[in-house]
């Protein structure tokens, strides 16, 4: 009994330890890696994926998945880009971007809650459909964004970037939403056991629906910052981001089965881990696609660890 508790503890700390080791590893090769400038730079670069992962974390907390988030980012920014090119004000365009994100999230919610399609298949379908829509809107061309937007995306108060602050703000808000509101508790309950939640009379359908709307909105915000950083909307926007978001969430200790984990610390840990890997690899001049490979391996390892933990607990009960 003692060894398995110890084993579980080790597994819990595995990823934070991994992060520390990898960071130190990169720092050995390139000392400035752990310098303040680089750290703030990493926080800046990881803001978009962290925001999207926040939405993903909310969905995963219910024991569900949404793999259309990257495509939602694309459509939202596609609409935004077109509007900006047609001389709409920056403010209106940004507002519409987030609105589109919410609407697409609502489409997901509709298919899942009212057509009762399994979330995996539903968001597979919408991922494809939305990407098609997004590319159709932008004609798969690179749409350059106005300078004001690029400035906003890269704006910093001293060393701290604007998007890092927004990211932290959103993350904290969603975290509080999860931990301290009735809505958040219902989400945890659904992740525990949706059938029991229904039986007890909780408003499951509404909660699931709104969670997808929130995730969609966050995806559009993440997409906004991602495009703003580069100053353009390309058809690659959001591609693969949903998979990275799943990996971030898993590494951050949020169980795919739902009901467990901390959104704030989980997303921070997960995003940091992937950003460290990405930026470290960048420094080393390694092939950028190596990063994709790492993502897959990490998910695999994390799931294996979760399976072991689950197997252990099954043996003990």
């Amino acid at each position, binding site marked *: 009994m003692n060894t398995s508790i110890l084993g579980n503890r080790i597994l819990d700390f595995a990823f934070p330890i991994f992060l520390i080791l990898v960071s130190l590893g990169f720092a050995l090769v390139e000392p400035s890696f752990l310098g303040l400038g680089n750290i703030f730079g990493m926080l800046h670069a990881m803001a978009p994926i962290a925001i999207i992962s926040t939405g993903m974390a909310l969905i995963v907390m219910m024991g569900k998945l949404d793999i259309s988030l990257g495509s939602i980012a694309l459509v939202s920014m596609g609409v935004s880009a077109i509007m900006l090119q047609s001389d709409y004000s920056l403010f209106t365009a940004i507002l519409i971007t987030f609105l589109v994100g919410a609407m697409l999230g609502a489409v997901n919610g509709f298919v899942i809650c009212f057509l009762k399609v399994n979330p995996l298949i539903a968001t597979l379908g919408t991922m494809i459909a939305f990407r098609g829509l997004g590319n159709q809107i932008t004609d798969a061309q690179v749409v350059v964004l106005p300078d004001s937007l690029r400035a906003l995306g890269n704006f910093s108060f001293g060393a701290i970037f604007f998007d890092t602050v927004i990211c932290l703000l959103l993350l904290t808000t969603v975290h*509080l939403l999860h931990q*301290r*509101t*009735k809505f958040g*508790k219902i989400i*945890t*309950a659904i*992740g*525990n*056991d949706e059938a*029991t*939640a229904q*039986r*007890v*009379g*909780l408003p499951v359908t509404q909660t699931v629906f709104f969670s997808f709307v929130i995730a969609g909105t966050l995806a559009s915000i993440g997409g906004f910052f991602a495009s703003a950083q580069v100053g353009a909307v390309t058809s690659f926007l959001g591609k693969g981001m949903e998979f990275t978001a799943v990996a971030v969430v898993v590494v951050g200790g949020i169980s795919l089965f739902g*009901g*467990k984990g901390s959104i704030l610390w989980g997303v921070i840990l997960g995003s940091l881990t992937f950003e460290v890997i990405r930026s470290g690899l960048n420094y080393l001049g390694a092939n950028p696609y190596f990063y994709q490979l790492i993502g897959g391996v990490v998910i695999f390892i994390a799931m294996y660890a979760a399976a072991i933990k689950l197997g252990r607990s099954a043996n003990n009960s």
Partner: protein
Amino acid sequence: MSKSILKMHNIEKRFGPITALSHANFELKKGSVVALVGANGAGKSTLMNVLGGITTQDNGQILINDEKVDFNSPGDAARYGIQFVHQELSIFKTMTVAENIFINKFPSKYGLISKHMMETTATQLLAELGSNLNPKHSVETLSTGDCQMVVIARAMLGSPKILILDEPTSSLSKYEKEKLNDVIRRLKTSGVAIIYISHFISEIFEVCDAVTVMRNGATISSQTINETDNATIIELMLGDVASIEKKRKQEKNETIFLSVNKLQNENKVQEATFILNKGEILGIWGLLGSGRTELVRSIIGLDGRPEGTIRINKNGKLSPISVEYLSQVTAYVSEDRRGEGVLLPMSVQKNTALPNLRKVSRSLGIINLEKVRNLAKRVIDSLSVKVSSSDQAVSTLSGGNQQKIVFGKWLETEPDLLILDEPTRGLDISAKGEILKLATNLANAGVSILFISSELEELMKISDRYLIVSERHVVAELPGNSTQDSLISALSKTSQGSAA
């Protein structure tokens, strides 16, 4: 004379062609604890579902404090002070005790949950129940008894006047049962009336003031606890069984086929020891929840790996074997027909072929469709299954015919051991008779049978010997010529104060 807080008069309820309740009555006096007992299908659950607002009655009245009420939803019932604690505890494992209690009624200020108030109130509620659980603790590591406290505390939030406890002790240890009884006494003192549904007849004598017995959808008797005893209650539950004609010739020659010694499967089966002779029908009797199904599932390894010894007769000698080995020569007709018996959307042919795939295939694993058809036809003919073609989907067959398919497919595997778990449940009289006849024929042909049934009548018709199971223990083995009385007393005697 305390007033009646609840009166249910002549409740009727049908589900399609099945009458669940016909003349159901129930009365509950303020501040009293009334036990509601009855065999499976007697109507207890339906009656309580009506009271809890989960279903609506077709006819009859419900009176609360002598005022007529109508329930259309659990919410309605709750408004009149009725709270239902179900057998399956609605618990959220990763959440804390306080969160579980307040899951429907989180106290909040400006949208944020008032954690402190929640935890303080939780501690208070739990204290009133005599529990000192820490509201901040996660429910994950709590025992069933403690989880039950949490659910009861949740029910108490609604300040109920009537509390329904459905099979509250089925997963509790002896110690936890006593704690629950304390809670019930406390609640009673604070003026809550309790309806206590249970299969453990001996336990109701410890906390209940009165007992209402139901049978076949009607209320048979309502007495105070002093006016009755164990044996009487069980007799009332089962009804009068006229002298049972034995359908089986008693075999004198007894060769042991199966010997089970001290079988232990966590808390599902406790030290079970029994013998089954070749060609014998061993009737396993006990009340619901006593562990009969768990026992038979354990010996063929369907619920994990049990400890203990299992030996079967191999070439005249009793040799120890594994549960996997036993499962290969055993046919298991599960009590869950839809979930474990038939593949509903698939055809009769495919269903009957499933455990017999080796039999109907040629070399290289290629299926011989003609053999499949013939096998299906054999099953249909020998069991008189009403179906127009063996291509039909099993979901279109009646319950009785579906059961015959289950039987038939297993018989084709030519098992040495046949386990029947409630094989006639939900079947009409003629189908029941056919199944019993079939079992008898099989036993005559040398198949050893373990026969679980809640209906004493059919058990007595064909069993060669009896195994009495109570509260996860095998408590007695009785000979074939036992009378109904001796069977009932064996069960009720051992129900009282058995070692947990």
